[in-house]
C-alpha cells in the first residue's frame, strides 16, 4: 500500500509536467494580440512594451516555459488580462463553487443511477431494463445546455418554483465565506434559511450536471452487476438458501458499491467536464465560467491556468478514488 502510494505520488510530477506542457503549447497558439487588448484601445507603445515584458513574451519559448513552470511552483500562476487579478486565488475561489456543484451533482447521480442500474440488472431484458437503458442513453444524448435552458424555462419562468441563475438570493445577506461552499458555510454558521436558499439555487444546475453521471453509472454498473450475477458466488448463495432479497441488498450491493467507488474518479471527471456549459447557462460563478470567459477573451494566462488546474484536480481525484478503492476492496486492501 505504502509503496503503491509512493509510486503514484512519484508519477504525479511527471503528469503535471506533461499537463503544463500541453497547456503551455495551447496558450502560445493564441493569435491576435491579447497584450494589445489588455493594454486598451488607446494604449501607447510604451504601455504595450511594458506589458510584453511583464508577461515575458519577448523571451525565447523554452525560457518562457521555464519561467512559467517556476512561477507555478511558487504559486504564481500569472494574472488575468481580463480582470487584472492573479489567476491562482481566483481559481481557488471559483473552484469552491464548481466543487459544490460537482459534488452535489455526483451524489444526485449516484442516488438515481445506482438504483436504476440495480433495477435494470435485476429485471434484465424486461421493461425496467429497457426503461433504464432509455433513461441513461437519453441522459447522455440530450444537449446539456439545451436541457438547462428548458428547465430554466419550465421551473423558473413558467412555474416560478426555482431560481434560474446565480448561487444565492440577492435579497438575503450573502453568507460569509468560510469554505466558499455555500451549503457548508451556511450550515457551519447555523443559518438554516440560508442553507435552504442555497439548496434551491443549486437544484437545477446540479440536476442538469447529474444527467451524465446518471447515464454513466447506470450503464457501467448494470454491466458490472450482470457480470457478477454470472459468478458462482451468486449460485452458492442461492444454493445455501439465502433469500433473493438479502442476496441483492447485502451481497450484490456491496459489490456494486465497490465497483462504484472504482468509477468515482471517472464520474467526477465527467461531471467536472459538464460544468463548463452548466455554469455558463446558470451563471454559476465557477471555474467553468471563468475558463469560458477566458477562452472568449483569449485571456491566455487564465486559459492555461484553468485548464491546468482542472487537469490537476482530475489527477488528484483519481489518486484519491484509487486510494479509496484500495481501502474498500478487501481483495487489494489485504494483499
Amino acid at each position: 500500500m505504502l509503496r503503491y502510494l509512493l509510486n503514484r505520488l512519484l508519477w504525479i510530477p511527471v503528469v503535471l509536467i506533461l499537463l503544463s506542457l500541453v497547456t503551455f503549447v495551447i496558450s502560445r497558439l493564441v493569435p491576435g494580440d491579447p497584450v494589445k487588448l489588455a493594454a486598451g484601445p488607446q494604449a501607447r507603445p510604451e504601455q504595450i512594451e511594458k506589458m510584453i515584458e511583464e508577461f515575458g513574451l519577448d523571451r525565447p519559448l523554452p525560457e518562457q516555459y521555464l519561467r512559467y513552470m517556476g512561477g507555478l511552483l511558487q504559486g504564481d500562476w500569472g494574472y488575468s488580462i481580463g480582470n487584472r487579478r492573479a489567476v491562482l486565488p481566483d481559481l481557488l475561489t471559483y473552484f469552491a463553487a464548481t466543487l459544490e456543484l460537482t459534488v452535489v451533482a455526483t451524489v444526485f447521480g449516484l442516488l438515481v443511477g445506482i438504483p436504476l442500474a440495480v433495477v435494470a440488472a435485476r429485471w434484465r431484458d424486461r421493461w425496467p431494463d429497457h426503461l433504464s437503458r432509455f433513461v441513461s442513453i437519453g441522459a447522455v444524448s440530450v444537449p446539456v445546455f439545451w436541457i438547462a435552458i428548458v428547465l430554466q424555462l419550465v421551473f423558473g419562468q413558467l412555474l416560478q418554483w426555482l431560481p434560474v441563475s446565480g448561487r444565492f438570493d440577492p435579497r438575503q445577506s450573502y453568507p460569509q465565506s468560510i469554505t466558499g461552499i455555500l451549503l457548508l458555510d451556511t450550515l457551519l454558521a447555523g443559518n438554516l434559511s440560508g442553507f435552504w436558499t442555497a439548496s434551491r439555487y443549486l437544484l437545477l444546475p446540479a440536476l442538469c450536471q447529474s444527467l451524465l453521471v446518471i447515464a454513466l453509472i447506470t450503464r457501467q454498473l448494470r454491466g458490472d452487476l450482470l457480470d457478477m450475477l454470472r459468478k458462482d458466488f451468486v449460485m452458492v448463495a442461492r444454493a445455501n438458501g439465502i433469500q433473493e432479497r438479502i442476496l441483492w441488498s447485502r451481497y450484490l450491493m456491496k459489490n456494486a458499491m465497490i465497483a462504484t467507488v472504482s468509477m468515482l474518479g471517472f464520474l467526477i471527471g465527467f461531471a467536472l467536464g459538464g460544468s463548463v456549459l452548466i455554469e455558463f447557462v446558470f451563471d454559476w460563478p465557477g471555474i467553468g465560467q471563468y475558463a469560458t470567459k477566458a477562452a472568449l477573451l483569449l485571456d491566455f494566462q487564465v486559459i492555461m491556468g484553468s485548464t491546468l488546474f482542472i487537469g490537476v484536480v482530475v489527477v488528484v481525484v483519481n489518486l484519491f478514488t484509487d486510494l479509496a478503492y484500495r481501502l474498500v476492496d478487501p481483495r487489494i486492501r489485504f494483499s
Partner: protein
Amino acid sequence: MASSVSNPSSRLARWREDHASQLSDLRRGLFRFARNRLSLLGLWIVVAMLAVAVTGSTWVPFPGDTLGDVHMDNRLQPPNATHWFGTDDAGRDVFTRVIVATRTSFQVGLIILGVAISIGVTLGAVAGYVGGTPNQIIMRLTDVMLTFPGIFLPMALAAALGRGMVPAMLALSVTWWPGYCRLVEAQMLKVREEDFVAGARAIGASRWRVIFRHILPNTLTAIVVKASMDFGFAVLALASLGFIGIGIQPPEPDWGSMIALGRRFMPGAWWISTFPGLFMFVMVLGFNLLGDGLRDLLDPNATVK
C-alpha cells in the same frame, strides 16, 4: 469443394467456410440486435436523419433562409402554417434552418471523427506494435490528454486557434484521438501475440504489412462501435462550442448557435431554441442507441451461449 480459385462462387463459398464462426457470431448478433427494439429505433433514427441530411436542402420550404436571406419585417413569428417552427430574429424560417443544419452536423461529425480516428489509430498502432519507449511516450501523452474532462481542452484550443467552424473542428479532432489510440494499442498488444501474426511474420511479411493487413482489421469492429457512439458526442461537442460562441459561421445554420441565439428571446420566442435542441437530441439519441446496440452485438461476452 471446387479448387478453382478464379471461380467467384467457390471463392465466396470458401470465404464463408473460412469465416464460418465469425459469420455465425454476426448472425447471432444481428438476431440479438433486431430483437432489441431500442437499437432498432436508433437505427431508424439514424437512417431518417441521414435521409434528411442528404435531401433536406432540396425540399425545405425556404432554402434561401440558409443562404443569407433576411426578412426583417417577419421577425419572431410563432409557429404557424407557413413557418412550422416559427421564424427567428432575422425573419428566417426555423424549420428550414433546423433541417439544413442536419447536414452540417453530419459533415462535422464525420470530419471530426475521421481526423481523430486517423491520428488515434496511427499513434495506437505505432505504440502497440513498436512497444518500448515510443509506446511509453505515446501512452503517457494519451493519459494526459484524457485527464482533461469535457470540453475544457477543446474550448481552450478552439479559442486559441481562432473563431469559426474549422478551428472548432480541428480542436475537437486533435483532442478526440486519445480514446482511439488507447483502444487500438490495447487491441494491438492482445492481437500481436496471437498465432496468425506470428505466422505472417514467419513467412516474412513486413512490419507495416502485418500491421495494416493483419492487425488493424481485427481492431476494426471495436473502432466502429466506438465511432458510432462518438458520432453523437462529436455533434454535441461542436454544438456546445457553438453555444458558448466558439465555432459558428453564419449564415450557415448550426444547432448550437441557433440554441444560443434563441436563448436571448426566451421565453417569448421559445421556438427558436426549442426545435434545434429537440432535433439534436433525437439525432444524438439515435446514434447512441445504435452504438449501444452495436456494442452488445459485437461484444463476445454479451452473446448467450
